[in-house]
């Protein structure tokens, strides 16, 4: 049976893992390679490394950090932040990543999605969508949550799928870093609108939040960062509790 994935996210500022609340107030949370290895050992199904300051600071992807992190990691490894061209994506794959996420640049130039998909396969392209509720709408924001686009998140997810995205990484900006639970309504709207898997992100705080996003949010995977960094054993414990709640997950080793 296909299991629900628990993905540990490392938000990095170039070479260090950082964590903020609603995309602000960043604080240091450790070394990406060490944390990735520890999360993998604790039972994480995937590692995502997002350089959250690459786009606003107009930096290239952090290839040295990617290389170091990928070196002894034998689970899927995704890198995002600052991917502007096919060449950026190629250099990230060369450094040892399996997938890239594209976000800001893909909104400005959606053909970036198809060009990466054609060269490296759809499975290698995740379109990251940062969404914020705006009255009845779900609006897409870019540049690490700094710029509103006026674009509807569900429509953008569908367009991304048509252009060759292999997965959607959907972050609720309203919930990000709050530990108040995933936005299940948002997740379900997007998950029901596309055929590709949807990774829910933003708001994880308790085991019950994961149960809800898999059941009510129809998420295929859930991503969290802050709850994992300060207590590495929590992924194994989270998975045991999810199994007890009847959610299919890969048992921790």
């Amino acid at each position, binding site marked *: 049976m296909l299991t629900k994935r628990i993905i540990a996210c490392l938000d990095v500022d170039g070479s260090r893992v950082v964590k903020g609340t609603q995309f602000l107030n960043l604080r240091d949370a450790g070394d990406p390679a060490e944390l990735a290895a520890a999360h993998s050992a604790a039972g994480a199904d995937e590692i995502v490394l997002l350089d959250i300051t690459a786009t606003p600071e107009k930096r290239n992807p952090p290839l040295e950090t990617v290389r170091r992190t990928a070196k002894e990691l034998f*689970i899927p490894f995704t890198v995002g932040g600052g991917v502007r061209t096919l060449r950026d994506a190629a250099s990230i794959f060369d450094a040892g990543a399996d997938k890239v996420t594209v976000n800001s640049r893909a909104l400005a130039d959606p053909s970036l999605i198809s060009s990466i998909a054609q060269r*490296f396969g759809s*499975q290698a392209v995740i379109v990251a969508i940062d969404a914020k509720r705006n009255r009845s709408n779900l609006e897409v924001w870019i540049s690490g949550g700094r710029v509103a686009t006026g674009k509807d998140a569900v429509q953008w997810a569908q367009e991304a799928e048509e252009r060759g995205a292999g997965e959607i990484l959907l972050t609720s900006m309203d919930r990000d870093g709050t530990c108040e639970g995933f936005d299940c309504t948002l997740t379900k709207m997007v998950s029901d609108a596309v055929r590709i898997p949807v990774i829910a992100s933003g708001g994880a705080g308790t085991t019950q939040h994961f149960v809800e996003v898999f059941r009510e949010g129809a998420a295929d995977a859930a991503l969290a960062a802050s709850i994992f960094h300060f207590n590495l054993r929590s992924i194994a414990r989270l998975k045991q509790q999810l199994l007890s709640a009847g959610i299919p997950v890969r*048992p921790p080793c």
Partner: protein
Amino acid sequence: MIAIVDYKAGNLASVKKALDYLGAETIVTDDPWQVRKADKVVLPGVGHFSATTALNNSGLRESIRTSIRRGVPFLGICVGMQWMLASSEEAPQIEGLALWPDLCSSFPAGVKSPHVGWNSLEVRDDASRLMRGVSAGSFVYFTHSFRVPRLKATIAECEYGGRFSAAIEQDNIFGVQFHPEKSGAVGLKILSNFCQC
């Protein structure tokens, strides 16, 4: 020396990294002569079946066929395994190696596609060399939109919108639909088994 066949489709870095980690001597090559010389051949594959055109147009196809005939252990991963069949619905005009006459097909409409994530293996053949020491129900990582049907050579099955071949083995020919290089300790065990074949 294990030749990892580079046909300019996707990403070979992680396959090489995993084999190197296991202490194998590897070379990533697009040279048919290097492939023919190797003691073992790995054909990775991510992406679209049409990428295998490069194998058909470069002399690599004949090198692989010759090596297989000589009994050299050969492992196809993901699209690399699919290419061992006659063709795929994904690109029906492109010929596979046709070691089996069957076709790769897509998933039914009722399930999400691609099939992405960790799914369990039902090991069907206890005598398999590739699956030695891998217990039934072990989880491995899949990411694919097309799949190989169940064959006589199927040694492990997977269930997702129906059953399909997760792994095949016949004499010196091995194929896995999942990514052993991305499947943690279980995947490394399978790669290590291949290295010992």
